[in-house]
């Protein structure tokens, strides 16, 4: 009779998690769903779920998609060389370089974005330095480029860490073997390192693409309120517009799109090795 006892213990250990998920994930989701499917008078309506297809919202959603896709690509392009360089470091330096990547995350996110605002503004640090070497001044603040810099900066660690975990796990012997068989370093990367890092890459994509798609703080601060992501539209519905129903409707439809996207990645994930988040 040891089986039920074990189960019992396991349930007990899992209960804080269950409560957490119930109180802070499931319950809020139900509330949002309820708002999304009712109007101000409390009657059932599906109007808000389809509001995402109005021209203004489509435009904002496409711009978000553009930012999120661009951010993901830049993060991938930056993450691979960094991780491969880290692989060649000794144990101690490797730990240190990982520490450096995580370090900024200990500081408040909004403060870091405000710092970027200072750097990129017309009279900012960047234009001051560019002026010294006779370039500029560049108009970066309040443009899509500024938003892109902000999201790439913010989400890069979430791309590096899973790829790092995946690549560090690759057995050195595999790479040696490839080299012995005459593969150059690019072929080694293309045929050995990259395929084995795909589970990490997929985790990275999910963790970068989804939040950068729905962010609104970065575009608010670095976009100067001139550029509108779908996240900004939703935020405005909740704060200044005071229309929680429309805001919830947009959130739900956005969530559906993200879930569809996730379903694709998880299908390709199950084919390979189980992915690692950290």
């Amino acid at each position, binding site marked *: 009779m040891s089986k*039920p006892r074990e*189960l*019992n213990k396991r*349930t*007990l250990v899992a*209960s*804080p998690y*269950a*409560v957490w998920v*119930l*109180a802070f994930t499931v319950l809020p989701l139900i509330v949002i769903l309820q708002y999304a499917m009712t109007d101000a008078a409390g009657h059932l309506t599906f109007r808000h779920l389809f509001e995402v297809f109005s*021209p*203004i919202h489509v*435009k*904002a959603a496409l711009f978000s998609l553009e930012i999120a896709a661009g951010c993901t690509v830049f993060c991938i392009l930056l993450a691979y060389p960094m991780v491969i360089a880290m692989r060649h470091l000794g144990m101690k330096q490797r730990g240190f370089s990982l520490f450096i990547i995580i370090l900024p995350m200990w500081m408040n996110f909004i403060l870091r974005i405000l710092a970027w605002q200072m750097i990129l*503004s*017309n*009279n*900012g640090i960047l234009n001051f330095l560019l002026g010294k070497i006779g370039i500029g001044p560049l*108009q970066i*603040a*309040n443009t899509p480029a500024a938003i892109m810099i902000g999201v790439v900066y913010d989400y890069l660690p979430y791309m590096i860490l899973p790829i790092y975990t995946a690549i560090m796990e690759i057995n050195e012997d595999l790479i040696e073997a490839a080299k012995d068989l005459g593969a150059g370093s690019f072929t080694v990367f293309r045929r050995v390192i990259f395929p084995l890092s795909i589970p990490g890459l997929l985790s990275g994509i999910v963790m970068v693409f989804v939040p950068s798609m729905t962010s609104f703080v970065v575009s608010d601060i670095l976009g*100067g*309120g*001139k550029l*509108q992501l779908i996240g*900004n*539209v939703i935020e*405005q519905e*909740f*704060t*200044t*517009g*005071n*229309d*929680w129903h429309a805001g919830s409707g947009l959130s739900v439809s956005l969530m559906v799109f993200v879930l569809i996207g996730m379903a694709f990645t998880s299908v390709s994930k199950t084919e390979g090795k189980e992915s690692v988040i950290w």
Partner: protein
Amino acid sequence: MIGKMKRAALVGVCVLLAAAMTGCGKKSGPAAELTVVNYGEYLDPDLLEQFEEETGIKVHYEEALTPEEMYTKYKSGAIEYDLVCSADYMMKKLIEEGELVQIDRSKLTYGSNIGDKYWKFSEAFDPGNKYTVPYFWGTLGILYDTTKVHGPVDSWDVLFNGEYAGEIVMQNSVRDSFMVALKYLGYSLNTDNEDEIREAQQLLIAQKPDVQAYLVDEARDEVVAGNATMAIVYSGEAYLGHEYNSDLAYVVPKEGSNVWLDSWGVTKHCDNMDAAMQFLDFLCREDVAMTNFEYIYYSTPNEAVIAALSEEEQADETLVPSDDATVNCEVCTQTDEAVTELMNELWKELKAE
């Protein structure tokens, strides 16, 4: 058996959580407590301590960034507020919805410190001054860098004629931006005429390429830092901007603008009117109002405080706006749902351009 235990544990933790979460909002015990909501940085925190020491009434202080956010917080009912401080039109909305209770002004020992002029301003949204007590007021105008402008700045025209393309910071607020455009076009800022509102939107859309950014609190800082030549700001912000950078000047354009008045009101949820009145009276008291004025530097309706200011300060338009500056100005009293919705929709369109 296992299921039962699991459920019991779940229920237990839920109850604990619920108790912990509601506990902080509710009044408990015999000591008097007040829950107030105000804008951020809109009351010297030392004064709250002083109030608690003097009266023994504990104040729970909540903040909201904008009147709309305050309204959303208030209406969500998560916390029952006893006192609210907000903008003119929002107080009107709360009065119309029956959320505020009448205040007996005669019971305020220091109520007479508030000048008649300001009670009159209040009448625009609170006829008979039954529900609200004026707190701070000011105008909306242009803060500009005198070293960077060519020609006089005395009209909203500078924002729309393209002369300062890329150097303008607008307010990231539906109302304030529409207000500017409507006044420039010669309409009332309280208009409910759809054509006039749409015309204002067209003007703002045409202006958008010239706008560097739409900001709220940072609008002033951008001009101070020299990133922008001019910004639409509230008069109090302009005073602080001038403190940081003496090249800056502030003007209320001749077409007129918005004169705004933030006031306190007691909500229907308040079950300790006596404590609420003590709080309002405290804020009207000369020494308290002075300390608060020196913390916020918006224009005060407290004439005892104005009388105690230096001559130079009294002559400063950003601190004590003259009757000349406010002659064409209007108090915003627009609370019509349809108009608000239209403006929100048009604003979203503008932002999507």
